[in-house]
């Protein structure tokens, strides 16, 4: 497929999506405030997906590994924080959890990544599948199977905006707004980290070309530990936001599977791609569920994201912002 065709199809795809998103309002089925609420709700849940996808992208960028265990790491971090908070104040619990995630990253690098260095991507992917299962069992053994509530001071009651302008007002969840702001701050910090610090530069070098980076003296093993730690910390933030909204329990890691379509849409190696991909997936899901769902009896959002990603893969496998893969034979 030529780049021009691919680009045109992408534009057509998004035009269709946009049309689909606006259609309920245009056709008169939904009033503007209701539609806006669905849009906001979709964007907010998209932020949650983006946070998980962010960790995925980080690890893929730097070590070429598709980390299937990202969801499990998010949950593990959140669970550790919740259970530790039962015994110590928030700040101390956060510090200990950060240490735990760094130790986890080190262990993964040592026990899984190092022996499997130079293997194909699919082997590493399956290894992360194994890690996900291990973390699932281990996390529940250590921290328990109950659902735990995470109290980090997020506002719970929703706010009703613009009641005078629109009838019924627009319901905005303050928790989601705080989550979005936190995510934005984290993305900004990460971008700063990658662009301005020496370690960030080293990470980008490793992402570019492992061998070249090694030849100029960048220690690969240490870089991988750093990357997995950063991904773990991103996972911790994601876990805090998710946990505060939904409560923490290991079954939630299933929902983190949704990060996969996000990364496909946004591109495996792009941080802004993860954010934008997440927003698009979240938005598409909610609009399709609320307006298309009743026609089919509901439950569409389980597969909508994946089918969307599948269609997108057919004409733009590298994602919106990813690098085009050129296979050299």
């Amino acid at each position, binding site marked *: 497929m030529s780049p021009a065709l691919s680009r045109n199809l992408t534009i057509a795809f998004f035009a269709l999506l946009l049309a689909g998103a606006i259609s309920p309002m245009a056709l008169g089925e*939904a009033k503007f405030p*209701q539609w806006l*609420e*669905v849009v906001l*709700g979709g964007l907010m*849940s998209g932020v949650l997906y983006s946070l998980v996808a962010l960790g995925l992208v980080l690890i893929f960028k730097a070590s070429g590994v598709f980390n299937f265990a990202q969801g499990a790491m998010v949950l593990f971090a959140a669970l550790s924080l919740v259970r530790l908070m039962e015994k110590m104040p928030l700040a101390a619990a956060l510090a200990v959890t950060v240490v735990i995630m760094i130790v986890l990253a080190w262990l993964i690098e040592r026990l899984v990544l190092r022996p499997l260095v130079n293997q194909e991507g699919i082997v590493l992917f399956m290894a992360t599948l194994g890690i996900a299962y291990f973390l699932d069992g281990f996390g*529940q053994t250590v921290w328990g*199977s*109950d*659902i735990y*509530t995470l109290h980090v001071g997020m506002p*719970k*009651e*929703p706010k*009703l905006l613009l009641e005078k302008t629109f009838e019924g007002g627009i*319901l905005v*969840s303050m*928790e989601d707004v705080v989550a979005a702001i936190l995510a934005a701050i984290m993305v900004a910090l990460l971008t700063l980290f990658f662009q301005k610090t020496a370690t960030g530069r080293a990470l980008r070098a490793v992402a570019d070309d492992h061998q070249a980076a090694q030849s100029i003296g960048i220690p690969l093993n240490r870089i991988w530990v750093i990357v997995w730690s950063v991904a773990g910390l991103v996972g911790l933030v994601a876990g805090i936001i998710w946990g505060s*909204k*939904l*409560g923490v*329990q*290991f*079954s*939630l890691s*299933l*929902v983190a599977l949704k990060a996969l379509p996000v990364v496909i849409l946004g591109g495996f190696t792009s941080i802004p791609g993860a954010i934008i991909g997440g927003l698009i997936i979240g938005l598409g*899901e*909610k609009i399709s*569920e*609320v307006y298309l*769902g*009743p026609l089919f*009896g*509901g*439950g569409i*959002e*389980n597969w909508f994201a994946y089918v969307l990603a599948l269609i997108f893969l057919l004409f733009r496998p590298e994602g919106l912002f990813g690098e085009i893969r050129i296979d050299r034979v």
Partner: protein
Amino acid sequence: MTRMIRTKAAAIALAVAGVFAAAQDAAAQSNEIFIPVLVYRTGAYAPNGVPWADGFVDYLKLVNERDGGANGVRIAYEECETGYATDRGVECYERLKSRKAVAVNPLSTGITYALTDKVPQDKITMFTTGYGRADSVDGSVFAWNFPLLGTYWDAADMLVQHVKKKGSLKGKKIALVYHDSPYGKEPIKLLEERAKLEGFQLLLLPVTHPGVEQKATWLQIRQQRPDYVFLWGWGVMNSTSIKEAIAVSYPRLQMFGVWWSSAEPDVTPAEDAAKGYNGIALGHSAEKDMPVHKDMIKFLYDKGKGTAASKNEVGSVLYNRGMISAMLTIEAIKSAQGKYGKRVVTGEEVRWGAEHLNLDAPKIKALGFGDIVQPLKPSCRDHAGVHRGRVHTWDGKQWSYTSDWLEADKKVEQPLIEASAKAYAAEKKITPRDCSKES
């Protein structure tokens, strides 16, 4: 190199030995009655499964400790983790039934459906206290299923009656937010029937396992503005529903959960914000001070033999339900022993015992359950025995009853039960028993 081969060979030999050892499960002692305990303590449904399991196992332990067994015959039991998955439940059942099991409580409507075909051949009585197939009330077709204390059609009917008292339902909207599984789908038939009779519009909103993604569901509820929401969830779905309801400002006072969706694990994550949330109670709520609770503490927890993580769990809603389910199983066994002799009874005898169970109020009081179990008398025609319930409401700290006793309307249910049972009998080529001939 040879050492590696030797270790690999040893590992393989060990594995093979393990296979055959696993195949020899210890036969149950011949002087004990064996009850397989199908529960789940992991996974998305663990928060609600664990207290039920604790209550069930605790009561079995209590019967052994305090009474020396059912009429002197000790109860042997073994837990098996099903994770609420039907195939694992079937696996557990197949594995444990060879130990001469007499009764089984699957704690899942999905597993109930799967086992309904198997229990008649294996001659094991299946107790589905407060869950299971709604049509299994008809004992002439479902001879081995006992949905004691009430079914989901009862629950749905009672809820409709309760909200009808607040004002006619004609032209109103009732939304059913349900778990997309046999459990959640069970009340739909009755609600559709009631919608026709009362003139309300029924909104069906399925939530897929595990039930954490409900934002779209509640956005739809906010748009459609139903007058009442009935919640038929389980596990983490329940607490998520309540949290999402809070997020869209749907008044909790207009939410009614079935008796499996109105317990502490569902409301405590949302804490004070869940105030006003209602549920239909299966005759009991979170009573903690019945004589049986005191016995639990005295005989089990004070001696460190209790199953629950802490004795504060004793008396919570689901703990009580597990306890009551175990009590009914044991009483059916005792009823069988009354006719067949105070010995180890077979599954078939327990089935007779369950069908001829007669637990009136004095007997229930004598067992230490006070008034938290409604008097029940199952019969061939009615395997549930009683169809009553009350509404209880969460006030932020505890549950309290907020309605009078409700009873399911037989006139509405009976035709549905008969039609469904008849269809099942035709499909499975079962000749229904003649209830008038049963003694």
